[in-house]
């Protein structure tokens, strides 16, 4: 904790301490320490198979850690389920896109409001006034999110019919609907062309400022990572290799060696 001198006024929103997980005899992640502060965009990079997505799965409780602690918003997250962690305020996207393919684009975002604007099934079946008020609010907020992600013209499309880049943006919109404090993006620019990537960078910045949330992202596109991340953590073989600002990471000989080999 002592090395965070410049941030010591604020407690981190996410605090990972000595995190590790073994799959049988294989240690996928070991001794990981990292912090994410409010309103920060942090990058998580590393060569293929370094354990980046495993870290996301640990943070969102898809996997239970073998060692170490994850504090979110100052609270220990041990024993929480995937659903609990989302309610607590961590939302994510997936490397291999996971949309609700048979639902419309708008309905995909509406599912994100499940715990934000709740009402009971009885309210729905009896069509009580609360149903209409809640649905109106959900609809307006979902359309706002679609506008931000520039998806409003696709609102009534079936989600699986969207172009690839739009599907990635839809996942972000759905994650934002859950009203998170921390957004985890798993390779948001994968499969996008340079122009789409540039637009995505602006969107991520806008989302951070507009919703006042922290963003932790995994990305292979170095232009994006170096362009928008304030701090970067580099993973290699499940271990933390380096941590620092984009400039520090770019000039770090260990990182260059990990990426390019000896």
């Amino acid at each position, binding site marked *: 904790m002592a090395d965070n001198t410049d941030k010591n006024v604020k407690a981190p929103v996410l605090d990972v301490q000595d995190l590790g997980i073994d799959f049988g005899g294989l240690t996928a992640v070991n001794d990981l320490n990292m912090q994410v502060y409010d309103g920060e965009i942090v990058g998580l990079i590393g060569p293929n198979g370094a354990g980046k997505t495993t870290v996301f799965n640990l943070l*969102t409780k*898809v996997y239970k850690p073998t060692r170490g602690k994850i504090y979110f918003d100052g609270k220990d997250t041990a024993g929480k389920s*995937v*659903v609990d962690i*989302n*309610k607590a305020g961590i*939302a*994510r996207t*997936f490397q291999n896109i*996971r*949309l*609700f*393919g*048979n*639902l*419309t684009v*708008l*309905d995909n975002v*509406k*599912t*994100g*409001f*499940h*715990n934000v*604007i*709740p*009402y009971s*099934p009885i309210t*729905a*079946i*009896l*069509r009580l006034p609360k*149903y209409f008020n*809640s*649905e109106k609010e*959900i609809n307006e907020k979902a359309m706002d999110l679609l506008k931000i992600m520039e998806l409003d*013209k*696709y*609102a*009534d*499309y*079936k989600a699986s*019919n969207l172009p690839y880049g739009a599907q990635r943006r839809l996942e972000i919109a*759905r*994650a934002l*609907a*859950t009203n998170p404090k921390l957004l985890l993006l798993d390779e948001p620019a994968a499969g996008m062309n340079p122009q789409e990537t540039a637009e995505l960078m602006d969107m991520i910045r806008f989302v951070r400022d507009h919703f006042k949330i922290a963003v932790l992202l995994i990305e292979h596109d170095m232009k994006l990572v170096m362009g928008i991340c304030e701090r970067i953590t580099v993973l290699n073989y499940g271990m933390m290799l380096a941590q620092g600002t984009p400039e520090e990471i770019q000039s770090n000989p260990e990182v260059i060696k990990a990426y390019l080999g000896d």
Partner: protein
Amino acid sequence: MKEKSSVFSRFGDKKNRGRLMSFALVIIAYIAVEVLLKTGSLGSMFSSLLVPITCYVVAAIGLNLNVGISGELNLGQAGFMSVGAFCGICVSGILAGSITAGIPRLIIAIICGAVLAAVFGFLIGIPVLKLQGDYLAIVTLAFGQIIKSIFMNAYIGIDTEGLHFSFVESNFKLQPGGKMLLNGPMGATGTQKIANFTIGTVLVIVALLVVYNLMFSRSGRAIMAARDNRIAAESVGIPISRTKMLAFVTSAALAGAAGALYGLNYSTLVPNKFDFNTSILILVYVVLGGLGNMTGTIISTVVLILLPELLRSLQDYRMLIYAVVLILIMLVTNNEWLMTKWKSLFSGKAKGGA
């Protein structure tokens, strides 16, 4: 681009159109049947099928919520009908003294049947819906068989001393003047027939309202999200087993209500009526009508119940023709070329109108 987006934008309206269509279909069919009944041009065979048709439609709509919308295979819908039927018969028998009017007693019996079936659904769902895969199919299949065996061996009667219940026939003694409600393998006998087609139609409309109102709500979106992508659904805070439970219990309750109506339409009802074949039959109505398509389910249920009766004159060839028709419908509805032709026919019309 303009053209393309207008085609796609109809996707949302289509849901509303489908909903209105199914209600219109039920009401028009009801009025048509009532007119035919009044003019006396409906044969006695068809008029005796009216209530069973509404029962199976309700059970099939419920099953479609479970299989089509929630995506979980359920092979025990007849079991839930059975629970509803015998519960409804008992409730009606018990209340026969205090409520003489048929309609309120029928409504109470239907509600009791639905509630008891829902309770059974809930109990089965607790262990099974935590698992992924085909476990629900296996367990509901077993449930259907078990519930049949239970009713085959259950003796329930009412007399001046109150309600009697036993699984052993020799232990079962009623005071003189007592009334047997359930008589083991003989099932329910001497039931007062209080079901009618109007209540059946109302039940169909209620079932449609319940399913549609659920579908187009927070819960419905959660059910469909859990079906489409379990991991993503959990990641946006949707509790999977509770969501699947809601669909399963609602489906069971609708089957229970349908069963109660069915049971009170006959003076005798044997537990064997609700066997595995009946469960499969209801599943065939759902699959043929289209998963998640309630209007289709209604049509396919009516057609597949009437078809064997219409083919009765062919005697031995009856089931052969039935099977051929079933296969043909499957082939035609799964033929993409034919379906696009069919759809372009409709969209052409819509464009001309606009």
